[in-house]
C-alpha cells in the first residue's frame, strides 16, 4: 500500500519579478492539467497541487518586513523522491520559468535536473500537520474505482438483462458477471492492496512509541499545568478581540478577487496565511499542538472523517480531502492550505457547527482570531467574526490542480465500498445494502 506525503516549497520572490511570475502562474492555471510548463495531469501521484503568492507584509509584532514569497505545495502518493525526480526531469523548464523569478534559483547555465532538485530540497518546508482524508488511497485507486462505479451505473441503466427473480442477489450476480467480462475492469477482480506488513508494523510502532512519549512528556509537564493554565487564560483574556473592532465585520471584506477562483467545481481550495500572536508562549503552544494534531490525524482521523470522537459525542466533517499546516517565517506565520468539498460558506458553517473546538485549538493562536477560552471554547463559535477573520487572511491561490475534481470525499468513499463489496461474500441484507450504494 502506498501512503500519502506532502511537499511544500517556499521561496522568496525577486521584487521586480512579481508581475512576470503572476503571468507564468496564470498561464499554468489556464490549462492546469495539460499546460506545457507543469502539466499536472501527467504526474500520476498528484492528488492536489497549488502555487500561492504570499505578498510582502509587515509583521504587526516588531514591524519586520517579510518579503513576498512563492509557495508550491503538492499532496501526493509516496515516494516523494519519485515525484521530485519526475518534476525536475519532465517539467524542468516549467520549474525554471516559475522559480527563476525567485531568489537564488540556479542561473540558466547551471540548470540541470540535479541543481533544480537541490533548489527544491533547499527550500522545502516541513509540514507540521498533514491531514489525509483516507490514508493509503492512491490517485490511481480513486480514479479506477470511480470508473468502476460509472461503468456499473451505465450497465444498470442500459444493459441489465431481464431476470426472474428480480432480487438483490440476482442483480448483484449480474453486476459481477458484467465486471468479469469487462477487460478494462480486470483490476477490480481483486480487492485493493492491503498495507504491507512492514508499513503496518512501522505505523503501530510509531503510534505506540508516540503515545508513550506523549504520556511521558505529559507526566513531566503535569507540575507545570497550573502555571500553563494561568498563562493561557491570561493570554486569552488580554489578547485584542476582533469582536470589539468595527473593522472585523463581514461587511468590511469584499473578496471578489477570491471569489473569482471559487465554485467552478464541487471541490474548492483555500489558502490562509496568518501571524502567530506575539510571545513565546503562543508559538510554543501552537508548535506542540500542531505536532499532536499531526499524530492524531496520522493515527486516528485517517479514515474519511476529521474530528469525530464518539466518546465525547463529537461529530466531525467528512468533506476535507487534504489539508496542511506549515509554520513559516521563523515561526511568525502559519500557512494553511485546504482542499475541500462544497463552497466556502458551507465549509465555514460546517466547521463552526461541528468542529469549532478543533479550529480553536490551532487557529486560536493566530492574530485576530475571535477570543477563545480554555483553548477550545468560544472562538469560531462567534460565527460572523470568525468568518470575517478567515476571509481577511485568505489569499488567492494562483494555481490549483485537483486530480479528480468531479468527486466528493463521500463519493470516493462510496466508490471504495462498492469495489470492496463487489466480490466479497455477503449476507442477503448486506447484498441489499451494497446495492443501495448505487
Amino acid at each position: 500500500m502506498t501512503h500519502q506525503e506532502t511537499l511544500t516549497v517556499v521561496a522568496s520572490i525577486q521584487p521586480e519579478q512579481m508581475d512576470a511570475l503572476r503571468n507564468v502562474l496564470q498561464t499554468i492555471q489556464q490549462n492546469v492539467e495539460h499546460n506545457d510548463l507543469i502539466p499536472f495531469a501527467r504526474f500520476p501521484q498528484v492528488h492536489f497541487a497549488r502555487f500561492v503568492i504570499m505578498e510582502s507584509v509587515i509583521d504587526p509584532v516588531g514591524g519586520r518586513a517579510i518579503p513576498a514569497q512563492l509557495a508550491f505545495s503538492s499532496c501526493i502518493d509516496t515516494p516523494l523522491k519519485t515525484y521530485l525526480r519526475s518534476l525536475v526531469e519532465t517539467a524542468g523548464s516549467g520549474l525554471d520559468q516559475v522559480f527563476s523569478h525567485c531568489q537564488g534559483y540556479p542561473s540558466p547555465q547551471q540548470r540541470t535536473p540535479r541543481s533544480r532538485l537541490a533548489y527544491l530540497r533547499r527550500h522545502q518546508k516541513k509540514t507540521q500537520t498533514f491531514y489525509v482524508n483516507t490514508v493509503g488511497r492512491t490517485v490511481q485507486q480513486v480514479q479506477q474505482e470511480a470508473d468502476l462505479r460509472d461503468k456499473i451505473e451505465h450497465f444498470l441503466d442500459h444493459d441489465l438483462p431481464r431476470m426472474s427473480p428480480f432480487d438483490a442477489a440476482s442483480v448483484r450476480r449480474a453486476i459481477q458477471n458484467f465486471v468479469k467480462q469487462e477487460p478494462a475492469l480486470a483490476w477490480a477482480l481483486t480487492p485493493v492492496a492491503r498495507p504491507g506488513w512492514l508499513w503496518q508494523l512501522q505505523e503501530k510502532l510509531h503510534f505506540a512509541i508516540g503515545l508513550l512519549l506523549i504520556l511521558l512528556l505529559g507526566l513531566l509537564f503535569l507540575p507545570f499545568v497550573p502555571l500553563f493554565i494561568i498563562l493561557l487564560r491570561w493570554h486569552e483574556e488580554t489578547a485584542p478581540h476582533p469582536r470589539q473592532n468595527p473593522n472585523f465585520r463581514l461587511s468590511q471584506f469584499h473578496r471578489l478577487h477570491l471569489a473569482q477562483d471559487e465554485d467552478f467545481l464541487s471541490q474548492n481550495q483555500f489558502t490562509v496565511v496568518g501571524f502567530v500572536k506575539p510571545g513565546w508562549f503562543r508559538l510554543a503552544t501552537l508548535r506542540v499542538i500542531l505536532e499532536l494534531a499531526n499524530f492524531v490525524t496520522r493515527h486516528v482521523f485517517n479514515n474519511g472523517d476529521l474530528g469525530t470522537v464518539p466518546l465525547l459525542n463529537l461529530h466531525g466533517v467528512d468533506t476535507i480531502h487534504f489539508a496542511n499546516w506549515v509554520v513559516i517565517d521563523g515561526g511568525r506565520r502559519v500557512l494553511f492550505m485546504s482542499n475541500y468539498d462544497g463552497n466556502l460558506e458551507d465549509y465555514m458553517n460546517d466547521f463552526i457547527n461541528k468542529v469549532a473546538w478543533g479550529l480553536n485549538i490551532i487557529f486560536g493562536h493566530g492574530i485576530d482570531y475571535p477570543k477563545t477560552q480554555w483553548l477550545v471554547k468560544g472562538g469560531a463559535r462567534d460565527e460572523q467574526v470568525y468568518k470575517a477573520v478567515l476571509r481577511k487572511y485568505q489569499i488567492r491561490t494562483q494555481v490549483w490542480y485537483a486530480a479528480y475534481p468531479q468527486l466528493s470525499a463521500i463519493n470516493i468513499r462510496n466508490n471504495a465500498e462498492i469495489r470492496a463489496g463487489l466480490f466479497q461474500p455477503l449476507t442477503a441484507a448486506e447484498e441489499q445494502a451494497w446495492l443501495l450504494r448505487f
Partner: protein
Amino acid sequence: MDSLDLQDIQGIIARGYGNLNAAAYLLLHIQDATLTKPWLAKLADQVQTSQDRPGNRCLNLAITYQGLAALGLPESSLSTFPTEFQEGMTEPNRSRVLGDHGSNNPQFWQWGGTHPAQPTVHLLLLLYARDDRQLAELVAELVEPFPASGIKLIGKLDTQPLKDEQGGFREHFGFRDAISQPLIEGLHPSRAPEHTIKAGEFILGYPNEYNLLTESPRVKPELDPHNLLPLGEFGSHDLGRNGSYLVFRQLSQDVVGFWRFLDRATQHADGSSNPDARLHLAAKMVGRWPSGTSLVQSPDGDDPSVGDKNNFAYHHEDAQGLRCPFGAHVRRSNPRDSLGPAPGTEQSIAVNKTHRLLRRGRTYGAPISDSFDPDEILTAQSPGERGIHFICINANISRQFEFVQHTWINNPKFSGLYDETDPLIGDRSPGKLGNTNRFTEPACPFRNRTHELPQFVVVRGGAYFFLPGINALRYLATLA
C-alpha cells in the same frame, strides 16, 4: 429574551396575509430623491406592522442597496451592510453560486438584471388586498403621486393565488406549497419545537440560532441627530434593528414541459401514457404528493387525509431515501434531521435551524388546469407565463438563502449524491462539472435513475432587498 418590538417590525415578517387574496409587487426607480423622501415619510405611516391585525389592504416596503444609495445614505453606512447585499444578486461570482447562467443569466432578466437598458430597481412595494378591486384601488392610489415624487414605476408584478378544493395553496406543477414554514420564537405560538426558530434568524436585533446578534447596518451618531434609531454596536446607531433582508426571485415554470417530460419518462413499452407511474415519479421529484402529504408519511400513494403535513422527519423513517429520495426538492430545501452532525438527533436539527427561510412568495399567471390534472395539462393549449414570485425573508442572506440555494438545491454532491441537482429548480450544468441532469430514486433491489432532465424553471428577475424596521424607514426618509 427581549420581547419583539412588533410595532417596528414590518407585517410581512409576521404574516403572509393569506386571507388577502389579491397581491401585487411594484418595482420602483428613484429619479429625484429630494421628491421621493417626503413621499417615503408619508408612506411610512401606511406600512403594515407586525403588531396590527391586517385589515382589507396591506402595504410593505423594501429597498435595494442602490435604493439606499439613491436616498442618500452615506458610504460610511452603506459599507456596513453585508457584502452579498452590497454586491447584489447579479454579481458574476454570485451568479455562478446561485446557478444564474445559461437561460437564467441576469442579462436576460425582465427586471433586476444586468442588461444596461434596464432601470435599476430601488424600491419594492408589496401590496395585498382582500380582492382584485381593492388591490386595483390601492395600486391606483399609490401610483398617482409617483411622478410628483420623483419615482418611475419600473414594473408591476401581478399574482394569482392557486387554491385547491381544500383551500390549500398550490404551485403550478400542481403540488400543495407553503406547508413547511419556520415558526418565529416569541411571535408565533410555539407548538412544534423542531420548527420554532430564534427570532434573530429573521429579524435583526435579536439573538439568532447561535445566540448571537447578526451583524446589523449602522449609522454614525452624528448622522442621526434626532435619535430616530436605537443605539447599536460601537456607539453607532442601529439601522438594522427590527429589519431583515428580503430575497426576491421571479421563477417561471414550464408546466407543460414538466408533465411532458414525466409522461415520456414513464411511458409503457408501447408508447402509451402511464398516469400512475407519471404521478409517482413527479411525487418522488417533489418529495410530496399533490395534496402535500410527504412521501415519508405516505410512501406508496397520496393520502390527502394526513392532517399535519409538516409533522415528519427523515432519518428514523427513511435514512436511505427509499420513501423520499435524497434529491427530492423538499428534502433538499429543508433536510430536517437528514444531515450531519448525527442525523436523526437534536444536533442535526439544530444545524438545520441555521438555514431556514421564511417564505412569503405567491404564484402568478393563470393555471393551465384548475384541477391540476396532468392529462388536462398535457392536452391544453395554454401558452403564457406562469410561475412563482419566490420571496424569502432572512437575517443573513449568505448563511440562509444562498446556502440553501448552493449547498442544498444546486449541490450535485448533496447527501452523498454524485451528479444531480434539484429535479424541479436545479441548475443542470453548474460550473465545469458537466451535466447534472439526472435524478436518482433509491429503491430495492436497486435505484431508478431518470436521465436528461431539462430545465423546468427559469429565473426571470430578482434582487436582494433590505426590509427596514418602521423607524429605520422613517430615518431613511429624513436623510439630507
